[in-house]
């Protein structure tokens, strides 16, 4: 299985090597010609351009088309190759968009943090938990303005647009805690620069345990909620008042 990191490294390397070769050749050839045909003060041949002539083209069209054809071949074959990998990225490593028991996490950006919704209503804010070595499908959206969710280390990115759900996947191979690994890639307001979140990659069994704990905590909370329903109502009213006050700023 190729991860997003593998795909990126393959293709980026090929583009970089070819791009560098082409760049060096073309720039060197340009400078070589500029130097070789520098003005040496020799008298001009008869064909030199004159003031006030109606423009026409110069000689040398054959070479022009040869170079053009060559560059076209390079560019088109590069992009065709990249397209094959695009199809892989679009369908995912299992060859099907999220399969039945795929891990799916809904990501929601808001100014200026990220919420993560896991199965069974488990939620986190500011930290994303994923199992190592497994394909994680994400559905990215936004609660307010246009954000863009990206983890550079994992070579994964998706626009977070209000009302839209952008789906993609990644595989995190190394367990560990990656601080500020998640960044926002679209200007979203005054806090955009600091709109980061942490990525925590757990061993699959640890991930399951973590999920189980969260689920249990959630159930406890719900029981608590039922017991103190009146309190909650009071709380809500209090919150609303706060909102109103905030609104007049």
């Amino acid at each position, binding site marked *: 299985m190729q991860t997003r990191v593998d795909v990126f490294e393959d293709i980026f390397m090929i583009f970089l090597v070819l791009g560098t070769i082409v760049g060096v050749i073309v720039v060197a050839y340009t400078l070589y010609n500029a130097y070789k045909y520098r003005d040496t003060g020799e008298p001009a041949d008869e064909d030199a351009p004159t003031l006030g002539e109606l423009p026409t083209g110069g000689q040398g069209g054959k070479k022009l088309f040869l170079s053009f054809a060559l560059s076209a071949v390079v560019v088109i074959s590069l992009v065709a190759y990249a397209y094959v*990998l695009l199809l892989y990225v679009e369908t995912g490593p299992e060859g099907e968009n999220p399969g039945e028991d795929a891990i799916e996490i809904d990501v929601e950006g808001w100014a200026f943090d990220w919420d993560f919704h896991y199965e069974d209503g488990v939620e986190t804010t500011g930290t994303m938990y994923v199992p190592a070595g497994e394909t994680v499908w994400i559905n990215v959206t936004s609660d307010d303005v246009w954000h863009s969710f990206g983890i550079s280390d994992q070579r994964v990115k998706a626009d977070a647009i*209000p009302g839209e759900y952008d789906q993609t996947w990644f595989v995190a191979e190394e367990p560990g805690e990656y601080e*500020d690994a998640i960044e926002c890639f679209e200007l979203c307001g005054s806090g*955009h*620069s600091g709109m980061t979140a942490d990525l925590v990659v757990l061993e699959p069994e640890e991930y399951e345990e973590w999920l189980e704990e969260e689920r249990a905590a959630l159930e406890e909370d719900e029981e608590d909620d039922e017991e103190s329903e009146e309190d909650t109502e009071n709380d809500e009213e209090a919150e609303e008042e706060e909102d109103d006050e905030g609104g007049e700023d």
Partner: protein
Amino acid sequence: MSDLPPRRSVRRWLVTTNHKDVGILYLATAIAFLLIGGILALVFRLHLLEPGGTGLLSGNEYNQYVTSHGLLMVFWFLSPFAFGFANYFVPLQIGAKDLAFPRLNAMSYWFYLLSGVLAVAAFFLGGSFAGGWTLYAPLNVPTYTPAMEATTGSNATVFGLLMFVISVTMGTVNFMTTIHRHRAEGMGLWNMPLFTWSILLTVWMMLFAFAALLAALLLLGADRIFLTQYFATDQGSGLLWAHLFWFFGHPEVYIVFFPALGIMFEAFQTFCGRRLVGRKWVIIAMVLVAVQSFLVWMHHMFLTTINLEIKTLTMATTIGISLPFDLMVFALIYTMVKGRVRFTTPFLYSLGALVLFILGGITGVFLGAIVLDYEFRGTYWVVAHFHYVMVSGVTALIGGLYYWWPKMTGRMYSEFLGKLSFAVYFIGFNLVYFPMFLAWETPRRVFHYSGDMTLWHQLSTVGAFVLGLSVLMIIATLVHSLRYGAIAPDNPWEYSRTAEWAVPSPPPLENWDGRASYASGSLEFVPDTPATDGGAVADGGTATAEAAHAGHEERHPDHASIWPFAIGVGTFVFFLGLSGLTPTVIELIEPYYPADGPVITTAGEISYLYPAITVVGLAIMGVSLFKMGVEDFYVPEPRVAERWPFGGDLDDTKMGVWVFLASDVVVFGAAIGAYVFLRLHEGWASFDPIPFAAWPGLLNTYILLTSSFTVIMALVMAERGNKRGLLGFLGATMALGLAFMGVKAFEYGVKFSQGEFWFTGLEYSLYFVTTGLHALHVIIGLLIAAFMIYRIVSIDAYLEDERPVEFFGLYWHFVDIVWVFLFPIFYLM
């Protein structure tokens, strides 16, 4: 009207309509905006010295600086700088005495300058727009403005941009008409110098691209002032803005780059002493790019939710559009072969531009591969890539400044200082932008970057100051030239070919005596009499029927009018006033505002200042437009010119009207497109017609169609010289227009009385704004009709020359046709 004051007088520069003067104004103003945009960049590069920022700027200030840097450089520096050259040299290159509409040209300059002043003033009106130069939705609507702590300032940015787009539209009409209809005898389209070609294709792209931006900004302006909801919803608003913006934004890349390319072609030919290799194919390649530029915009949206099929198609068109550039690059390279390359300052800049463009192009291919784009989106790779491309364009434009400097000022510059400035510039450029490729994982517009990128960002900041220094050196070189430079000959460059080098440096006010002609195969100046075949000069001064028709045989063309400036000032004041209206509007509509509408948290407060400013602006506009309308300003059309394919019985004004209407088609097209897009997004069937009944729409359809008939009758009467008939039918047209507005007012009134307003919901916004935009066109038509009636009554206008009635008729028919589309969309579906 009056004579043009001397160049040393300030008044000269306020009243001049001469293309060379306006060109210099454009160049000087563009450099001023370059300096402002550059200072902003230096400040935020300093802030970027340390990860997390040095504390120089707050997050919000940083966003403002980044946003204004982008807007000022792209809109107020790059294009206008190129159009400074276009103003000065396109007429010279094609053998015209001036642009087709000199007052309109002056007006587009004043709109340009004052729009920029408004955009910069935004900083002092509570903070400028801080949502990025792409103004992505929904961050661009007032709901999120409190986060930016400014309404007036960020509105001023948006309206500054709107005013700039109006300036561009006027320029487009002017250049299109001039290049198509004022070419010297013998200069077919194929024969045009490549700089002129590049400008022609640029204005063609501008015509359609900027009209789409105009529509987007009108809708955004409505959202920001009147609280409509185009870009405020989570029902496709974000994508709608991205589509509208990039439909404009991608052609804009070529709009910015083509003039630079044109300069590179000119400079390479001159300083290599060779004609361009594959000239015909280069032109074809440029035409292909211009057309295809409208089919690639979605490559800016690869990471959004558009589907794979569309992405694939866009990828194909994107690769397709990169190939013609390969051809152009190779054409430049092969033009050097077997040439006599002279490393003058302008050539060094052009060669440098070519090298930088090659690097920019190669790194662009990376972005064309969608998989890579997924990773590069929103990173410094994009920043580095487009700076390599755009600032490569700047490099060529600076080359153009040196190339044409002797022609414009009559002074040579110091080659030593020029080359020194190039060396510093080239090093500075690569020091700023190349490290950005290395730091590519940094997100754009962010100062919290990871620590291992620090070195690259610091190098980049140092480079920014080196680049800034080189700009000062360029300015110093040119100031030095003005003071100490040797007197420039007519043609300082061996092997130059184009006509501007055949006239004195600087050229006289009307460029040359007589007219330019290429009928013999090369440039000659012949007495201005109608051509006989082969360019043979007829005996001087035989008045022909055509000349008699013009009726101004002896009259000298006018070059001075204060009204373009006055109209610019009025429009500036008007937009300044509009910028501050939002709080007042919020206060007024608050009682009717729907509870489930987008949250408006800006404190509303009735202000009398800004409404007053708006009214004052309107008054200045009204008076000065009227004054300009009655001003006697003589601009002759060339009697002999190459006009294919816009010859025949077309005249300049008629062509101008057609070009304007073509751009207006795009404006309405975008507005209707926005409606279709948003309605499809929400589900076509989920909208009900907003009007309380279909009959007012039907009635208005009849009224407008009838008015189309009366305006034709008015033209017939004018042709017959029948004053009473003309007055009667023009009056009837006005009456019908007023009736239309009456029905409309009634219809709106019914809605308002039911408590339904433009801010009630998305479908209400769509209905009120689109029909409102149409109503605005009707009102403008009514004002023109009223003016014409005044002219008929006061000076018996249009009885000898009925063409203005015809032009008005074209506009009026267009407005009617638009209604024919709006009626079924908003009343029946």
